[in-house]
């Protein structure tokens, strides 16, 4: 394979993955596709190995890889040109949760099956006990929407109408849900044409050879990186989920270690027993974001492909654990355990390669939804917003406020758009002073938003975490401030909420305030440059009290000057 084809075929393959994404964005129906971009396309070789992906939601890749291989096993010898498969079953073929629906199409050149195109797209509704399907207090899989095992949704180029009817009968939003599934199938078909053009232009073996070589390149580059890490076990790093949404008293432990040995990275995950509520996580999902993290840390400029998987292995706790749940344990809130597990994996990685991994972010991202009747029109409304805390501090810089570094990448809703459509008034949207984890470099700040209810009644759901256990930070940093949500703050009716709330009824002029945790800090805060602390105080990121307490920097409230002597005393005492 020459250097030129290696680049040209590779770029052309990435371009097809990009065009699939653009096509889905263009033709998808729901706002989930068009606004949140909650979908991912990927291309696989004939052996089911990932070769390219469009702009992804990081949590989608792992399930896709598992599902393509499930289809290969299940339909060996029964796969024909013009077929397309559908699946969403979290246990039968690995899926995040049932509202993520996968469509996979085999690519044939003549009689030979040479590749697969697969995509996952989140659905606005697929039945289940609540509108939007994902119920925060579900206690088994069957409450979490229609389950579709691997089936043919397209046979010989024709839609399987029976299956279409079945799906449409099981969703509250048949038109939009089917519109999206249809766009998934049609976009795969577009990809079939484009891949056929690529195979025609360069030859099947040349294209497959190029893909193979790129997997080898990623493997070789990763091997070089691993060789630089001292062998040993890093971790275990331990963290907790607040509760499972059903039993609100009990926290759940997850942990991760990294063993570097024989030129390979072996991650050891562990957790408490599986939860009754929907915070369980299927192994293929965690396996994937671990691979994503490995790529982000070691090969930031190389593609994600099957080559990475060769040097990365993961072991899980026994079946029946939160990180390896037994059918039919509920999973719909899988983003929560994903965030916390990401945090412990990052911490283990940071111990192995200290200068190359940020401290974990807040892991507090989550959603607030509410539904009720609009007083102006009398019509039902359903409002949905997603928020982030802050990212972790970097080894060389402060974290970024109001952003997540891996799992969640979804925009907030502008106040002006929100109030124009829904009976609510936003009273504050701001960064929360002192929310960031203090360190030599501090974390990003979390946000606070405060809503006043203008409808007569509105039922709210809160799906988040980190009210009890905030990001601890790395290398002698102090923990970030946890999240909190409060009803009617500063009034006699004030009361705190838990991080998972299902169907709480609020009334006109109730006020809800939700403050998100900040990201973790990096390094000893007493070693932070006092000028940076002063600048944070002047800009209101850190209060004068916290400057003294967390950073050992004494600042004059009148002119914001640093009291050098008092600062020196505090810092020397701390060191002693």
């Amino acid at each position: 394979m020459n250097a030129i084809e290696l680049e040209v075929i590779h770029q052309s393959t990435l371009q097809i993955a990009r065009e699939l994404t653009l096509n889905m964005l263009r033709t998808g129906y729901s706002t989930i596709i068009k606004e949140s971009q909650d979908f991912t396309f990927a291309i696989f070789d004939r052996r089911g190995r990932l070769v390219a992906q469009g702009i992804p939601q990081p949590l989608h890749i792992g399930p896709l890889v598992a599902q393509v291989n499930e289809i290969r096993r299940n339909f060996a010898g029964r796969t024909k040109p013009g077929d397309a498969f559908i699946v969403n079953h979290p246990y039968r073929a690995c899926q995040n949760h049932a509202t993520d629906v996968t469509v996979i199409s085999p690519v044939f050149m003549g009689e030979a099956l040479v590749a697969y195109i697969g995509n996952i797209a989140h659905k606005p509704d697929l039945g289940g006990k609540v509108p939007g399907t994902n119920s925060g207090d579900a206690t088994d899989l069957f409450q979490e929407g229609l389950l579709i095992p691997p089936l043919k949704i397209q046979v010989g180029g024709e839609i399987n109408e029976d299956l279409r009817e079945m799906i449409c009968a099981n969703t509250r939003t048949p038109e939009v849900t089917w519109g999206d599934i249809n766009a998934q199938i049609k976009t795969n078909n577009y990809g079939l044409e484009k891949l056929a053009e690529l195979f025609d232009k360069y030859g099947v073996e040349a294209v497959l050879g190029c893909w193979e070589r790129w997997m080898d390149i990623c493997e070789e580059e990763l091997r070089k990186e691993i060789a630089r890490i001292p062998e040993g076990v890093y971790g275990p790093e331990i963290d907790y989920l607040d509760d499972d949404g059903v039993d609100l008293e009990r926290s759940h432990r997850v942990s991760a270690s990294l063993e570097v040995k024989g030129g390979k990275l072996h991650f050891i995950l562990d957790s408490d027993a599986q939860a009754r509520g929907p915070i369980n996580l299927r192994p293929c999902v965690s396996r994937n974001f671990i691979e994503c993290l490995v790529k982000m840390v070691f090969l930031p400029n190389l593609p994600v492909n099957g080559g990475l998987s060769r040097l990365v292995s993961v072991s899980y706790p026994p079946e029946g654990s939160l990180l390896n749940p037994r059918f039919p344990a509920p999973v719909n809130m899988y983003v929560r355990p994903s965030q916390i597990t990401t945090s412990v994996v990052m911490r283990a990685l940071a111990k192995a390669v200290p200068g190359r991994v940020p401290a974990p972010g807040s892991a507090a991202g989550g959603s607030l939804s509410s539904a009720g009747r609009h007083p102006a029109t009398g019509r039902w409304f359903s409002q949905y917003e997603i928020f982030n805390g802050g990212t972790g501090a970097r080894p060389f810089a402060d974290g970024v406020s109001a952003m997540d570094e891996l799992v969640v990448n979804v925009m907030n809703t502008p106040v002006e758009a929100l109030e124009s459509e829904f009976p609510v008034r936003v009273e504050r949207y701001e960064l929360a002073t002192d929310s960031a984890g203090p360190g030599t470099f501090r974390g990003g700040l979390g946000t606070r938003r405060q809503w006043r209810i203008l409808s007569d009644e509105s039922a709210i759901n809160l799906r988040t975490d980190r009210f009890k256990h905030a990001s601890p930070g790395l290398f002698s940093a102090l923990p970030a401030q946890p999240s909190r949500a409060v009803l009617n703050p500063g009034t006699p009716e004030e009361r705190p909420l838990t991080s998972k709330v299902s169907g709480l009824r609020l009334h006109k002029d109730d006020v809800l305030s939700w403050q998100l945790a900040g990201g973790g800090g990096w390094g000893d805060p007493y070693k932070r440059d006092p000028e940076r602390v002063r600048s944070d105080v002047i800009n209101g990121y850190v209060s004068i009290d916290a400057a003294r307490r967390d950073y050992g920097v004494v600042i004059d409230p009148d002119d914001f000057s640093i009291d050098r002597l008092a600062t020196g005393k505090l810092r020397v005492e701390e060191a002693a």
Partner: protein
Amino acid sequence: MSMRIGIDVGGTFTDVTGFDDQLAEVVLIRKYSSNPAEPMRVMQQIATDLAGEFGPEAVSLILHGSTAALNTLLEDKGVKVGLLTTAGFRDVYEIGRQWRGEEVFNIFAPPPKMLLERRAVQEVRGRLDWSGAEVEPLNREDIERGVRVLLEQGVEAIAVAFLFSYANPAHEREAGEIIKAMAPGLFVALSSDVNPEWREYERTASTVANCYIGPPVSHYLHNLEELLVETFPNCRPLMMKSDGGAGSATMLANKPIQTVMSGPVAGVIGSRYLGDLKGIENLITFDTGGTSSDMAVIPNRPLFKSEVAVGRHPLRTQTVDIDTIGAGGGSIASVELSGVLRVGPRSAGAWPGPACYDRGGTEPTLTDALVVLGHLSPSALLQGDMRLASDKAWQAVRDKLATPLAMSETEAAWGVLTVLANNCVTAMRTITVERGYDPREFVLVPFGGMGPTIASKIAADLGVERLLVPRDPGTFSAWGMLVTDVHQEMSQTRLVPLDGAEPAEVEALFAAMEERILADLERESFPRERLHTLRSAGMRYRGQSYEVAVPLGPITGRADLDQLAARFHEAHYRRYGHMAQNETIDIVSFKVTGVGEINKPVLTPVARRDDAVAEPVGHRSAYFGAEHGRLEAAVYRRSSLVPGAKVTGPAIFEERTSTVVLYPGQVATVDEYLNLEIER
């Protein structure tokens, strides 16, 4: 004598084109070296030269495209800005949209860039609801206190961005008055003026950016206008705006943000003009210089976007939709990952430039590869001012590419061209496919110094059958300025459900905006008969949070609104592949563009002669891939070609500002305007 002058200020060169109305001909093509540190110097030189050559009375119009606003932003050279915002919303600007964008896998994804410190954000009590109705009165003391704090901090400009000001600008205007009274002469911008549309973050960020570049850019525009008016008493000096129209320094003084994309748009406008002249509907422009390529899809009309990101600053301002990638003559080729050939986006820049410039550069660039391939002649560049050191090009390609890859210099150079062309092809596929078009239905218009040299390779890989190479492609953007009109836009966000809309109200809304725009343009000394307006409505299905712009005419009754709905369904279908005829439709924004027509240069066609024969001035060996190998290509001087002349490739056309390469089997015909039409 009456001259129109187009001046395109780029990073390296400033191109000047002059069109003589009486002769109906381009009589001046010139390149000056740019002086980014002191742009006025170059303009003074140009003004002096023009006045000397044509006389001060002769110049009637100067259009000018400038990177002043863009560079101020990219180089962090703006002023210290303060922001007054609604109480409780101090951090709208810093929080942004909590989005990493496409940097999904960048664990160190940078934050959105801030053009001010958080302490320069001052909160003001006073709240409107979504309809613009007052919920809490404006607190004047808060404003006075905030302004005092900001002045103590030493700000040179103040942005005012309150929630829902697009629905009711009264609070912002009152704040503006107070600031003016407290600090006369300070640069002040209200978000309801800069971008009266919803979504508070983007509106705030645009207003802050406008303030950041405001004082230096409006100062530059003002000085320039003064220079030009003093030098040329009969001249109307105009500046290109990002939307492809032009405006005067007065029109742009408070909204210099409208000029951030002033540079690359003129080529798109010029291409559309050529396409109209030749009856070609679908065009893709390909403008390649030293470091980057600008591309735009023009399906009939140019496409626009209402937001553009510059150096991670989101700017809400109407912009011709142009995409840029890092592919140009200076793009550096290297062998990476033990055996992959990569080209760009790294560029050798103007200094040291490609190895063949012989200024110490040793890394091989596209230009070096083209010299090795024989596509570029060592003597044809930069109007012959600079000879290229062909041995340096060969050496760089040999040392850095051919030897490590164990191939010949020619094969390696062909690889550089192939990889770079493929990068351009993928970018062009993205911008067409994204909008629902097939690139094969388009004609490629290459220009810029390097565009015509590599365009045939790109067209072949893209599946495009036809190319149109304008005359003087290296200065085509400056020419494009001469065919533009003066534009003034106004937009307004107002949520109007189409079902319940009163036709008379919709009409009144548009009419009021048109009246204001026409009055503005009349102040620019356009007579009414040279003015017209264009309306469009931003529409969506209820619940969507993006809009499709639908052009419309006068609304005289229900039937016009029904027709508007039908056109929206159709536009939605075109863009998104489906429509929903039972869904509720909202009009979200109202937009009016006022157009002050400027006389266009009249190009005189020269009849094609059947007996026209092209005579080559020489031959040179050029490589066209493994299939053809090295061939003797006829070399023509483009300026000597007459309409009707037909040449079959391989051939090379050299001209003052560029080199056109014709591949084996392609046929080039000189048309009646001296464009080269290439078919394969």
